């Protein structure tokens, strides 16, 4: 069964203090690894998809990287508006679980001004 573990559970940063969130995964044939952002009271918002080890994607202050066992979400010079829960998810190559996303428990990021 696919498994996703995110760390830390919660992260407090000062504005401008760069850091990284970790997502470790076990999956039978990775088809894609996804990062989502979730604000309180809202649905998850798609950020990135990574398909293979070595791949990197960037969006504003966020950069996602992927290895064969884990993914990192690097946040450079964060701002208070980056405060949210960041969710990692994987989908495998198919079979009866085709299309299924398995999520981690999320990392709650708080950025103080």
């Amino acid at each position, binding site marked *: 069964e696919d498994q996703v573990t995110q760390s830390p559970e919660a992260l407090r940063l000062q504005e401008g203090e760069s850091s990284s969130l970790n997502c470790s995964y076990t999956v039978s044939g990775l088809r894609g690894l996804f990062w989502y952002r979730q604000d309180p009271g809202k649905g998850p918002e*798609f950020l990135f998809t990574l398909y293979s080890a070595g791949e990197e994607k960037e969006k504003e202050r966020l950069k996602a990287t992927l290895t064969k066992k884990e993914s990192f979400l690097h946040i450079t010079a964060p701002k208070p508006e980056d405060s949210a*829960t960041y969710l990692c998810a994987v989908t495998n190559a198919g079979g009866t679980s085709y299309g299924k996303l398995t999520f981690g428990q999320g990392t709650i990021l708080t950025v103080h001004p």
Partner: protein
Amino acid sequence: DTAVSQTPKYLVTQMGNDKSIKCEQNLGHDTMYWYKQDSKKFLKIMFSYNNKELIINETVPNRFSPKSPDKAHLNLHINSLELGDSAVYFCASSQLNNYNEQFFGPGTRLTVL
């Protein structure tokens, strides 16, 4: 302009009642999903429909019955509600061959008293 919409946003009901949650997407996607997010914010898939056909059915009590009248709509009917059904339910949609980038609705917070 809402891509994935759900109604109602809040649902408060008594144990034993039957209730429905509706979901609509205007993205032209062929696949829709229901997820449950528990009090610890853990997001878990319940069902998935592709072109009105059930393709994912996780271990969910048979009190939960999804219905897809067309590929733009996926409703969730819950019979004999229990306290443990209290959670936030999210609808999502994707184009199944697009490596499963899923777009989520705003969620329905269900409280069973």
